[in-house]
């Protein structure tokens, strides 16, 4: 991998911090998520200039500005198309998508579906706060039926999207969940997601103290029948990995297992990796088809001296 730094100095999380003023609300869970991304990249020793961060629009979408990396704060819901093209342009970059839950599962729903099918080697971190925060707290697709935050004018009468299950259905080959305020563990999950060869979704439970008074720090720190609401899958012996990627039976079973975990009775919420499948990526398939890509990323190939004589001859 060309992501190994070329100079001696090791990469620190702080290297990924930009200088710009951060205008998130005090106490916003997004701070934790962006730190976790920075920690994960440092852990993997990817130099900042080999990273492209692509975010949508919303509070979460502002993340791109807070990263020191090639950063694109794109359009509401369009993280996936942008991530896709960036990776195609330069498959040697570490490409990370970041965005809100409305961005990813609402307006971006169609792209989210297609992104899973492609299995490009990218990571998508979704800051899931159950609301459209930047537009003042309307219901987002992850708010459950019957729930009403203080910002909503009425309780939701639609079912919530289950991001884990949706990602499984769309074909993401790495599906995980983290918690914004457990930054350290979140950074481990994100590091695994980046290391995973294929499309990785990390849905992050994010507190929005300004608008979401249901899913607060207190809520997540709560207990259910004497057990903490949040717990780590990797501490329960849960095995998310498909060991034989050629076996459709194992794939289906591992998906079913993840499905059951994602709708756990009683309301406990497992954190960690729900599902992981190692199969060739989209780039692998492209490389097999397009010889130049075996040598260099597209953006580095000389495409400017092509000879179209054969194309013309075909038409004679």
């Amino acid at each position, binding site marked *: 991998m060309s992501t190994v730094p070329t100079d001696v100095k090791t990469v620190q999380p702080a290297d990924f911090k*930009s200088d*710009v003023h951060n205008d998130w609300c005090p106490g916003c869970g997004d701070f934790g998520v962006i730190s976790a991304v920075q920690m994960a990249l440092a852990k993997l020793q990817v*130099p*900042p*200039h*080999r990273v*492209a961060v*692509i975010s949508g*629009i919303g509070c979460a979408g*502002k993340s*791109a*500005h807070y990263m*020191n*990396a*090639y*950063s*694109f*704060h*794109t*359009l509401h819901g*369009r993280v*996936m*198309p*942008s*991530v*896709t*093209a*960036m990776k*195609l*342009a*330069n498959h*040697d*970059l570490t490409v990370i998508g970041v965005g809100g839950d409305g961005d990813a599962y609402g307006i971006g729903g*169609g*792209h989210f*579906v*297609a992104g899973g099918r492609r299995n490009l080697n990218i990571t998508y971190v979704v800051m899931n706060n159950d609301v459209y925060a930047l537009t003042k707290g309307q219901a987002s697709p992850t708010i459950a039926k019957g729930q009403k935050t203080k910002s909503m004018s009425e309780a939701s009468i639609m079912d919530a999207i289950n991001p884990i299950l949706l990602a499984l259905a769309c074909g993401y080959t790495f599906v995980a969940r983290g918690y914004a305020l457990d930054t350290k563990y979140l950074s481990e999950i994100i590091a695994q997601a980046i290391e995973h060869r294929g499309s990785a979704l990390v849905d992050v439970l994010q507190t929005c103290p300004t608008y979401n008074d249901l899913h607060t720090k207190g809520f997540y720190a709560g207990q259910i029948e004497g057990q903490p609401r949040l717990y780590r899958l990797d501490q329960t012996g849960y095995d998310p990995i498909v060991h034989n990627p050629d076996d459709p039976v194992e794939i289906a079973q591992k998906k079913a297992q993840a499905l059951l975990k994602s709708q756990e009775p009683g309301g406990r919420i497992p954190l960690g990796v729900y599902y992981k499948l190692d199969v060739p990526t989209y780039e692998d398939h*492209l490389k097999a*088809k*397009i*010889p*130049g*890509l075996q040598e260099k*990323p*597209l*953006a*580095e*190939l000389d*495409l*400017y001296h*092509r000879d*179209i004589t*054969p*194309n*013309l001859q075909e*038409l*004679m």
Partner: protein
Amino acid sequence: MIGGPQGSGLNVSAEILAKALSRSGYYVFGQIEYHSNIKGKHSAYKLRISGEHVSSHLDAVHLLSSLDEETLIGDLYHEFPAHRGHVHEIAAGGALLYDVEQKKFIELIDRKDIFLWEMPYAELLDRALTEAGKPGQARAYRIMTNTLALGASVGALGFDFEPVALAIRDSFGAKAGKVADLNVNAARYAYDYAKERFAGQLKFGLPAAPPKREQILVKGSQAVGMAKIKAGCGLQTYYPISPATDESVYLEGYQSDHNLVVLQTEDEVSAIDAAVMGAHGGVRASTSTSGPGFALMPEGLGFAAITEAPGPVLVLYQRGGPSTGLPTRQEQGDLLFALNAGQGDIPRIVMASGDIEECFYDTFDAFNYADRYQVPVILLVDKHMASCYQTLPPFKTSHLKIDRGLVKPANTNGDYQRYAFSKEGVSPRSVPGQAGGIFWSTSDEHDPRGHITEGIGNRLAMMEKRMGKVALAAREIPDGKKYIYLGPAAPQKIPVLAICWGSTKGAVHDALHHADPHHAKYAMLHIRLMSPFPAEAVKNILSRAERVVCFDGNYSGQLARLIRTETGVSVHHSVVKYDGRPFSEDEIMVALGAAKAGAPERLAISEGRVIEPGHGNVEFDKMLELRETNPKMLAPMVPLPPGYNR
């Protein structure tokens, strides 16, 4: 012209004939009309064959080859029939080639002034099949009728069979062999039959073949595709849509040859966004679509513009609107939409190619503009141009130069600003992955570093920077790429000025060339660049013109409106055509004639005539009458090719 049901292979036959003629030195122009349907509905292919270069079709048909009843009497099986066949289009002295099985409809035809040539296709086919060891299977192989009709046409025209045989074989590609032999044989039976009986009778025979030269037979979609390859396009994104798909399918075929990635996206929103981000990512990127797809792209266009991406190049294949409209028919209805798509004031370059040659060179230039000005570039083409098939000299490429615009110098001392205000008006760009080139980018208004800001001074400066790039392009792009003027030089007066854009250029060019080759009476002004619009130059030319006639393939006269917006000048006649069909050479002269004879300011044209308001309803009613007075007919069924899989 050849008419018959879609899926019956008539377009293949027509293109085989075109290829044979082209290789023999003829100039050919092919135009196809077809339905948004896979099999069964009516299609018609017109081939114009000439001894000199032609870029348009004529209304009059000299030889009509009919593959079904519908070609003869129309689609009277509908409650509201759409057409009455093509027999009325045959010029006096022309001929109709038909299958003996259509005989009962021939009786309905009241044309004493044309030849009616009957062909026993089934019988001839049976002969060929018998030879191939498949006697008595003519019904199963009915799909081959189009090949026989091809042979018959060639025979009736008195053209040689050999080039046609070769072209038939070529059309089967590598898998030639027995099937190709069978087809050639069948065609030859029909050829011989027709040649013997009909050759030499037509007063419009084939012209003498011009000397053989290297020439290509090419469609607009192929020209665009080839230019993208030549321009170094690295990423083409698309979502299938007529008539744009052909270009992407063409490019798909060259991915491994030319190291090109073609990405089929989930929709057009994604297609443009991916193209924008591909451009940011360091490759030349493009997307192609038509109206319904473009309707989903204003968002991405604005995104490209505000982030000053070096592209994408967006090729917009106009087709009949509004909405899904007439998916496979001609219209030039997206000019004003392309110019105004997107909220706010968006810098953009909008080009419009006038013919297949321009398609090639414009596409190439488009990528240079995208890089040089860091703006989205829209290239307008249209269905007619995309699918018409024309002989041309092979494109010259040696003079083409790639200009990737300003890029970040290697040493920027760690303080690189992607959106720096600069004297050039364009900020040097960096490509992700480079050390020292990190930047931020946002769809919000931003400062030179690319971070969000809502400050007034910065806002003013950034708006001027972005919009200034279009002004810069206006200064740098040479006149010849902005418009083409053929007519008396200044300060001479221009008696009649015909203005055109897009594929109408072909018809106007041919019409004037034939009517007034030295432009004593008629001049042509073809507009190639719509934004930045060459307002001064156009105004100057208009000021010399005594009568200005502007041709628009749309309802509202969009170019005429644009000219008024940009110059304040109202054209004398806005000639519009919105029937879903391209202007023919004949129609240009009809319109110019009417204009000179004092027609009103707005002049609508259809089927070779100037039409009055309400004309459509009259035609509509006529069709109902026709349905009532004619025998019931069955909807055409496409014969299934042998081996057809169900």
